[in-house]
């Protein structure tokens, strides 16, 4: 707007301060209602999405091995045993393995290598015979390396990360059951828990994580194969007591000292830390450190996060295709890995294997009606509330707009002489149209800007005092400004037309 139009506009508005205030108030209420409704809508949607991510609805877990398929050598084993072999969660697995005759015989095998050993081959295959001391013997801990059984490689993890669309993060993992102790000597305070050897990307997959103290291990600690450890909240509580800060302390795993760099807990109502859970009754170390200590090269799991929870089923299929081709599995042969979505894990756990198999077979549809439906119904409830607020915003804006029209029509009548004077000193019809249009726009924009400020404060207060999830986007401010400007133009049209069609003589001598 040119400077002189601004001067003319300000002159005009000063003529009717009180009516101007009322018109501005209407627009203010409308725009702030708009900002609040958009803020709450986005906040609620964000919050629903966050909770879905926090409980891992977008998570896809690839596990080495395939419990659904009876392999030839398994033929004599009862279905209940397959339950023990269900991947990833079962604490029993390690214990079952410990009792297996093979490992005991491995332990009994005499070794002559001394302090350093030539490690001729990796100990990935639990059935292989070793011509060097096993991890358990080298580390002096009978339980070291008991969970090793793997068909997945780091390269598989990178392939999933790089070649599939819709995957946001991938973390590889080796999982063991292990005892973590406060001191090297026997009999010190210790806790039997789940050990996850993983990558520094893991926190990106765990949207629901928060750090009670410290941090996750870093990229450089991962590359250096450092003996660093992140404790789950439950482990920290058991070893150091609640409210303790164990960062910087040393704990022992397989008789090796590990420095604690952080304690991780949950921020979601959907998953609270509990003894026996897989995330917080757990310890985390770099997978590179575990590979080094246990002389391993393979992985137990690859965990991938889908960008959105609704895509997990499709991505699970894509991952299966990719890994089958990477592992050279021909059409008739079964997978040598298992791909599960979080929903499958939730539904599948605790079921008898035969039932679990049936559930898994129908998982494509089951998956869709669980998380996606839960998320969907929350979204619908949210939409209802937002629609209500948006209607209030709409009605207020309409009332504000009518207020502006009314003010300007009134002022066209009240200010007929002014229009006449302006015409007599050289204003054209266009000048008069501009004057009334810009007065209207200045009023609605003022209302709009105040409305944005009020809206922001209300949104903050709702967030602060009611604890609702809120989200202010700059887009909503832009929308508010555009709407208030457009309202001004619309409201100004008719009064401006009326004012500009006045004849100079008639207007000058109007009483």
């Amino acid at each position, binding site marked *: 707007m040119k400077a002189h139009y601004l001067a003319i506009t300000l002159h005009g508005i000063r*003529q009717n301060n009180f009516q101007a205030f009322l018109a501005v108030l209407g627009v203010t209420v409308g725009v702030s209602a708009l900002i609040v409704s958009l803020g709450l809508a986005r906040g609620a949607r964000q919050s629903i999405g966050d909770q879905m991510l926090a409980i891992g609805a977008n998570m896809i877990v690839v596990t080495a091995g395939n419990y659904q398929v009876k392999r030839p050598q398994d033929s004599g084993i009862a279905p209940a045993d397959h339950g023990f072999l269900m991947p990833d969660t079962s604490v029993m697995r390690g214990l079952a393995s410990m009792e297996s005759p093979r490992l005991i015989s491995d332990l009994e095998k005499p070794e002559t290598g001394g302090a350093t050993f030539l490690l001729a081959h990796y100990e990935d295959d639990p059935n292989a015979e070793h011509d060097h001391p096993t991890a358990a013997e080298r580390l002096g801990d009978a339980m070291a390396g008991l969970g090793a059984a793997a068909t997945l490689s780091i390269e598989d993890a990178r392939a999933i990360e790089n070649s599939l669309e819709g995957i946001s993060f991938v973390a590889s993992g080796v999982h063991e059951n292990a005892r973590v102790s406060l001191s090297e000597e026997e009999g010190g305070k210790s806790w039997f828990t789940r050990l996850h050897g993983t990558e520094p990307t893991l926190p990106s997959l765990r949207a629901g994580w928060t750090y009670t103290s410290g941090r996750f291990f870093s990229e450089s600690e991962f590359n250096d194969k450092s003996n660093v450890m992140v404790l789950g909240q439950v482990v920290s509580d058991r070893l150091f007591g609640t409210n303790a800060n164990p960062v910087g302390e040393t704990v022992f795993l397989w008789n090796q000292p590990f420095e604690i760099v952080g304690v991780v807990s949950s921020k979601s109502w959907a998953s609270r830390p509990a003894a026996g859970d897989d995330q917080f009754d757990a310890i985390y170390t770099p997978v590179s450190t575990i590979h080094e200590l246990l002389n391993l090269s393979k992985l137990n799991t690859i965990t991938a996060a889908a960008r959105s929870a609704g895509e997990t089923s499709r991505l699970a299929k894509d991952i299966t295709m990719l890994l089958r081709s990477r592992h050279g599995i021909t059409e008739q042969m079964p997978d040598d890995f298992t791909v599960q979505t979080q929903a499958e894990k939730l539904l599948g756990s605790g079921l008898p294997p035969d039932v679990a198999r049936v559930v898994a077979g129908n998982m494509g549809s089951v998956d869709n009606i669980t998380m996606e439906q839960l998320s969907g119904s929350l979204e619908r409830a949210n939409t209802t509330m937002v629609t209500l607020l948006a209607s209030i915003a709409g009605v207020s804006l309409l009332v504000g707009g009518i207020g502006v029209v009314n003010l300007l029509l009134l002022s066209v009548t009240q200010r007929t002489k002014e229009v006449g004077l302006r015409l007599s000193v050289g204003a054209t*019809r266009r000048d008069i149209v501009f004057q009334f249009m810009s007065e209207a726009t200045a009023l609605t924009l003022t209302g709009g800007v105040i409305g944005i400020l009020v809206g922001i404060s209300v949104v903050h207060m709702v967030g602060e005092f009611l604890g609702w999830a809120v989200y202010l986007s700059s887009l909503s401010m832009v929308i508010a400004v555009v709407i208030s400007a457009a309202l001004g133009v619309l409201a100004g049209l008719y009064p401006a037309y009326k004012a500009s069609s006045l004849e100079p003589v008639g207007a000058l001598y109007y009483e």
Partner: protein
Amino acid sequence: MSRFGEVVGTNEVAVNANVIKLDNVRKTYEMGETSVHALKGVSLSVEEGEFVTVTGASGSGKSTLMHILGCLDTPSEGHYSLGSEDVSRLSREDLAEIRNKKIGFVFQGFNLLPRTSAAENVEVPLLYSRPLEPASVRKQKALSALNLMRLDDRASHHPNQLSGGQQQRVAIARALVNDPELILADEPTGNLDTDTGREVMETLVELRAKRNITIILITHEPEIAAYGTRIVSMKDGLITSDTSNQ
């Protein structure tokens, strides 16, 4: 009619150039079925620096004459030249520009914008000038016009803080701000008491003497008309007398 044409003719012999030349101007208003003939053929020439007062009873056509002279209205018939330009058939936009550049108006009711300072009121015509001058220049011009009216100490006063005479002098400053060729005053003393009215008239006389500006003033009061150098009387849409008053 031709009689006045001859009068005009004799005036043309004078040294000064004509600022205004009306040639047989008629103005007819259509009021439904009937037609009102406000001007029935008026011819008039005014030279630069003249102070013409137009008198007549209400309904004599003097107001219509002033509207046409002020380019607020156009003649139904006849021609009107302002300076060297025939303005009788110009568009609304062109007329607006002529009003802005060449004519300054002074009204009976002052027509100042309320809640607006004297300086800002004087500045209003400059806001519609093309090309637009910078704000500092506009302000400077407004202040010097106020200064000419000896109102520089009232520049920031609002109209309701000024006396009637001061308000009318602000209005005269506004009429002068764009340095017009012609000042048109419509009953400028009508709302003022006798003393203040005389003061305003003396301001106009002084202005004409100082700046050689052409003034046409409409009044129904003979004593106000007597300030003019030339007195034109009207009746029933016609000029009935046109006398010099030196």
